[in-house]
């Protein structure tokens, strides 16, 4: 018998620990690909904001060694538009749907959380506290005070499960994770993309319209893995590992480091079947190593347990 991939992410029951990273997946039922979202442990949606937003001026993408920069800037239909799409499209999925919210103030986070926490389609809320591409440049997950305020505001606004998504651009990720936990987050998700820049040496200016962007993809995997390893040793709530996961081996490394689930982002752009391959690969690893459940390997590479 093949190993059991079912696992628990706080109060959420997942059929496997693999889900897309916010902003790195979508579903167009009328133009469907070879891959149905219901194969996934959960679906994490692109971040949404309270007001509609256009997103950043092009160029929004730049390729980098083993990765890419993006400066998308969260184009969003706003709360109302998003709610419609949620009800009309995402409600059709059987797998848990995690909505991601992004905001400019604790109050905005609270409104989004209160409204979306009520939606039956929303199994959990991911709080994007770490978008590197917004115009004011303030990243709540970089500021201990603002971070606490935002997470507390969300906590007060909803009973829904909340996941705090943190930024790697900090001196002490453990501090930020601990603040999120004590402010009421039910889970921690890390890492978001890392601030970066590419310059066009012929045009003599940054490639991205916005100057800087967020670095993602395999290049950042070792950075993400170190942070996940550290945070898993410091908080009690479950941790979702994300950053550069592109093969089953990578996902397994995050689980061994202590993550309860993983998110897969950039690699899906290159290989839209990557998540399916990762799910299959985890099962094969468990089988070949003689484990009966994916939960058996969580944290096995830790020296502190």
């Amino acid at each position, binding site marked *: 018998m093949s190993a059991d991939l079912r696992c628990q992410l706080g109060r959420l029951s997942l059929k496997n620990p693999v889900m897309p990273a916010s902003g790195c997946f979508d579903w167009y039922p009328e133009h469907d*690909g070879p891959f149905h979202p219901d194969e996934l442990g959960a679906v994490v949606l692109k971040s949404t904001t309270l007001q509609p937003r256009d*997103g950043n001026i092009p160029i929004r993408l730049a390729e980098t060694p083993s990765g890419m920069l993006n400066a998308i800037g969260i184009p969003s239909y706003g709360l109302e538009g998003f709610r419609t799409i949620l009800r009309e499209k995402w409600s059709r999925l059987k797998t848990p749907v995690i909505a991601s919210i992004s905001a400019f103030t604790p109050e905005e986070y609270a409104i989004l959380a209160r409204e979306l926490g009520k939606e039956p389609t929303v199994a959990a809320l991911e709080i994007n506290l770490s978008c590197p591409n917004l115009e004011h440049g303030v990243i709540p997950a970089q500021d201990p005070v603002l971070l606490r305020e935002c997470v507390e505001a969300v906590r007060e606004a909803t009973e829904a499960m909340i996941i705090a998504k943190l930024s790697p651009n900090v001196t002490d990720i453990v501090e930020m994770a601990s603040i999120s936990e004590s402010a009421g987050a039910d889970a921690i998700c890390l890492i978001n993309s890392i601030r970066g820049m590419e310059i066009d040496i012929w045009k003599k200016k940054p490639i991205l319209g916005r100057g800087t962007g967020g670095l993602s993809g395999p290049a950042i995997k070792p950075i993400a893995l170190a942070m996940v390893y550290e945070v898993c040793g410091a908080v009690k709530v479950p941790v979702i590992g994300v950053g550069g996961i592109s093969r089953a081996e990578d996902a397994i490394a995050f689980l061994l480091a202590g993550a309860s689930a993983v998110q897969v982002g950039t690699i899906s752009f290159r290989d*839209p079947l990557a998540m399916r391959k990762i799910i299959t690969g985890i099962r094969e690893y468990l089988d070949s190593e003689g484990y009966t459940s994916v939960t058996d390997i969580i944290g096995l590479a830790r020296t502190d347990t």
Partner: protein
Amino acid sequence: MGWQYVNGIVTANHHIDEDVWRIEIHCPEIAGMCRPGHFVMLRSWQGEPFLPRPMAIFHYTNESFDVVYKVKGFGTKMLAAAAPGREITVTGPLGSAVEHSYLGKTIALVGRGVGITPLLPVAKAASEEGGSVISLLSARTEKLLVGKEDFELLGEVHTQTDEQQHSRVTDKLERLLNMGRHLDAVYVSGSKRLLSHCEELGARFGFQVYVFLEERMACGIGYCKGCAIEMRQGSRKYSLCCIQGPLYRAESVVVI
């Protein structure tokens, strides 16, 4: 409908002229679904560069399709190194197919260089459906007037190369229009300069101008929201080139 992500096999990969190549890829799963306007994401290498490359489809059968590409950077260099027999991953067909009705209509196709590529399937569809087609092709060299013979089978063709006198291929279009020739629509690809001229003519003579646009793409399938095209019309400021494009009404977009 829908797209696939599969392995194709390179069956031919020829140098045309200067930095331009033509590759044929055996890939029935995707070729069989192609329509005018479609493009694919290609990756014939392992490792670097990280992302696949978007390429318009120049020609397709039920079994295979052809892409004409210019070697620019690392990705297209790797593509040019892909020998027949090599596996190549293909995501496609992508983009919004051109579903215009051509019956009894006269259209002009204005292309420059590798930009000519996406026009051939449109020309074929128009001609098959009973429309008439005028093709105006421009390139650096005679050989780079890719598909000239194919366009000739479908209707009137005017060409212009940089080796010849320096005028715009669309000057010929202007002369035809001035002589009273009727046009329903023009499809432009590969030149901002020719596009401006066509827009001017479209306004003067009252026909619709369409343009094939390019923007950097990470995924080609609407996941990343990176391929934003700035809009002049409509409720949203940006449109995703890989989903809503790559063909746009010229008046609706800001072309940079």
